[in-house]
């Protein structure tokens, strides 16, 4: 119920290509779906996020596509650059009286070849 499943584990993309990372969740109570980017030696940082009442959100080269009925969402990185090489985590959050509880996927290691 609380799991977030992420794929692929690793991804190699040519510079200028499109990187696509997929996630699936089970708990329909989740109401906030962020993506985090983590570089080696650093903590994760929020990249982009979406709420389930929206099917798509775009910020620059990063787009989240959200399919509520399938309980799936994905991150698309357009025109991928070597500087995008990092580990990406999808996550799902639910808000209750204690605040937001955020569950992370296992991560996708992206390498963009120059």
């Amino acid at each position, binding site marked *: 119920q609380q799991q977030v499943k992420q794929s692929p584990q690793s991804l190699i993309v040519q510079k200028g290509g499109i990187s696509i990372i997929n996630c699936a969740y089970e708990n329909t109570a989740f109401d906030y779906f962020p993506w985090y980017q983590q570089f080696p030696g650093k*903590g994760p940082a929020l990249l982009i*996020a979406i709420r389930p009442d929206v099917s798509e959100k775009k910020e620059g080269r990063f787009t989240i596509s959200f399919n509520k009925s399938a309980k799936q969402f994905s991150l698309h990185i357009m025109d991928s650059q070597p500087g995008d090489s990092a580990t990406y985590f999808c996550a799902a959050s639910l808000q209750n*009286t*204690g*605040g*937001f509880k*955020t*569950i992370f996927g296992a991560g996708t290691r992206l390498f963009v070849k120059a």
Partner: protein
Amino acid sequence: DAGVTQSPTHLIKTRGQQVTLRCSPKSGHDTVSWYQQALGQGPQFIFQYYEEEERQRGNFPDRFSGHQFPNYSSELNVNALLLGDSALYLCASSGVNTGELFFGEGSRLTVL
């Protein structure tokens, strides 16, 4: 504006010992969450503190405990350390009504 700060950055302990990790949240944030990140894995939710109380807890044993102080800073305590406790421990702060987490760089714990 200081972000989330954690200390120590690295530490080595032996099995059975106890450890305390510390976190200062981003200015203006009142909620602190702790995560355990094993090598090559995603962060696993340990617990969350707000108003000096543990509000939510993940699937971690009672050996993991915490505290939040009036200035919103927080501590994570782990007793009776096991080899499997070796990981990066991340602290994240947020406003109570926002889902965005701001992470520190973590405390890397090695248990020998």
